[in-house]
């Protein structure tokens, strides 16, 4: 398995399947872990970082956590490869900018990614399409158990798993769901939903994490509590109580739009398709906006000749690094705009 293979398809989180996939694009669980007896990363010398990276990589690769796995040495990776991994949600923005010894382990299905030497020594994530948090939790526990056979993690009888930032201490668990909320955006109720999320002590942010705009009406909602509750309870609360509320808000907003302004609503969707199938220059921002409408059209049954998987693939593969990797050349934004429009026309079956 090589990095270039990734561009042939969309990652697991964009398969467009799983429970409540009309609203929940993907589910993610993440565990933060640190090697016992070593300083946290910000306090490591260059030598220690190197030592950690080699030690952790060796043990992860030997632990048999997944069949076919790929290790990417981030420090040695070029800008485009880093961007590619970021676009696929396999590494964080911070990791994509790192120049110290660090890397990422990726399973073939891309459901598993382990960042080595990020803010914590290990950041293990399991990513799935649809609302499948319990399943993801079970999987990540198995992985964590296997890693624990080989690696001693910093652990404290009171505080649990110790992390570089005290806001992750305890379970080290962050649970998130990526939600597609276009109808709430259209009805103007998205601000209420965001406020509700914050009132529930949740973090809500755009597609690529902290400080990013909610491109394509995609919002990432995460829990903030990591201590005082078991992992099972945290997942249960999030998956069975929190997220269903947002699914319900969005579904209701879709019904409102369908009932109250059917013509205007359909018009928006069909115009989006017309532009996607005809435009000659397309920015990634506009692409995300139009694909969001197309996705919505499919979900409410207004569009039947394009499937969700195609939409998701186009969504990912038209992002800057993917586009350049697929076309095997570096392009400036203008060239990308033209290449993107052509790519979309082909994929969506237009002239």
């Amino acid at each position, binding site marked *: 398995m090589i990095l270039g293979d990734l561009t042939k398809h969309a990652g697991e989180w964009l398969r467009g399947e799983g429970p409540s996939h009309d609203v929940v694009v993907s589910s993610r669980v993440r565990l933060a872990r640190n090697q016992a*007896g070593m300083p*946290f990363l910000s306090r490591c010398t260059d030598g220690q970082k190197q030592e950690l990276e080699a030690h952790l990589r060796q043990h992860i690769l030997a632990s048999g956590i997944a069949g076919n796995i790929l290790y990417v040495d981030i420090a040695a990776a070029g800008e485009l490869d880093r961007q590619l991994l970021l676009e696929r949600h396999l590494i964080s923005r911070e990791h994509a900018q790192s120049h110290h010894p660090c890397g990422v382990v990726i399973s073939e299905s891309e459901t598993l990614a382990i960042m080595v030497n990020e803010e914590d020594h290990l950041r293990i994530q399991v990513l799935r399409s649809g609302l499948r948090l319990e399943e993801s939790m079970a999987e990540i526990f198995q992985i964590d158990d296997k890693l624990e056979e080989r690696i001693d993690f910093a652990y404290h009888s009171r505080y649990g798993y110790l992390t570089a930032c005290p806001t992750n201490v305890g379970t080290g668990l962050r649970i998130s769901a990526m939600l597609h909320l276009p109808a709430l955006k259209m009805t103007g109720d998205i601000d209420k939903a965001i406020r509700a999320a914050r009132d529930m002590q949740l973090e809500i942010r755009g597609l690529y994490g902290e400080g990013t705009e909610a491109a394509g009406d995609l919002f990432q909602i995460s829990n903030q509590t990591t201590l005082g509750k078991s992992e099972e309870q945290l997942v249960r609360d999030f998956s069975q109580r929190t997220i269903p509320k947002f699914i319900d808000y969005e579904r209701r907003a879709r019904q409102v739009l369908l009932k109250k302004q059917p013509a205007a609503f359909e018009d928006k969707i069909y115009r989006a398709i017309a532009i996607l199938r005809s435009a000659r220059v397309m920015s990634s921002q506009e692409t995300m906006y139009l694909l969001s409408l197309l996705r919505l059209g499919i979900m409410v049954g207004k569009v039947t000749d394009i499937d969700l998987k195609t939409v998701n693939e186009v969504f990912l593969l038209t992002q800057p690094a993917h586009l350049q990797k697929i076309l095997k050349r570096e392009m400036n934004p203008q060239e990308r705009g033209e290449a993107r429009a052509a790519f979309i026309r082909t994929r969506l079956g237009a002239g």
Partner: protein
Amino acid sequence: MDFKCDKCEKPATVYLTEIHNGKKIEKHLCETCAATEGITIQPNVSISQLLEEFVLHTGPEDELARKDLTCDVCGLSFSEFRQQKLLGCPHDYDAFERLLLPLVERAQGGASQHVGKVPHKAGNEQKKHNALLRLRGDLKGAITSEDYERAAMLRDQIKELENT
């Protein structure tokens, strides 16, 4: 319980408790009336905001911080932690405990004890300890939600575990 706005009878969404000269005054307002009173509604603070606030915070703990506690394992001082918001090594949790604990509790909704997964290598005692904590938490939840059947079952489980 749902309150009506003290001023206009609309449903109140803002609840305020003010202490004036040692007297507690409760106010219930709707969003509009709250705004005219000059009260802006802030969403609940995020953890990073809390940390920010904590960094700027001047309180009794400051006495301790002023002496600038330093971890004897990694050499990180508490003021450095305040600046970078990241700890230097696992031992910092013990070295800075008195200063760190209030922050952890505030960030974690009052919790300061891990009840989740325990590494296999950690002693069985630790596992038992955490399992008991978890069961007791569940028991509390069951009682609150008046699920007495589950509560009785949990109580039995706790007793059984305590006797092993």
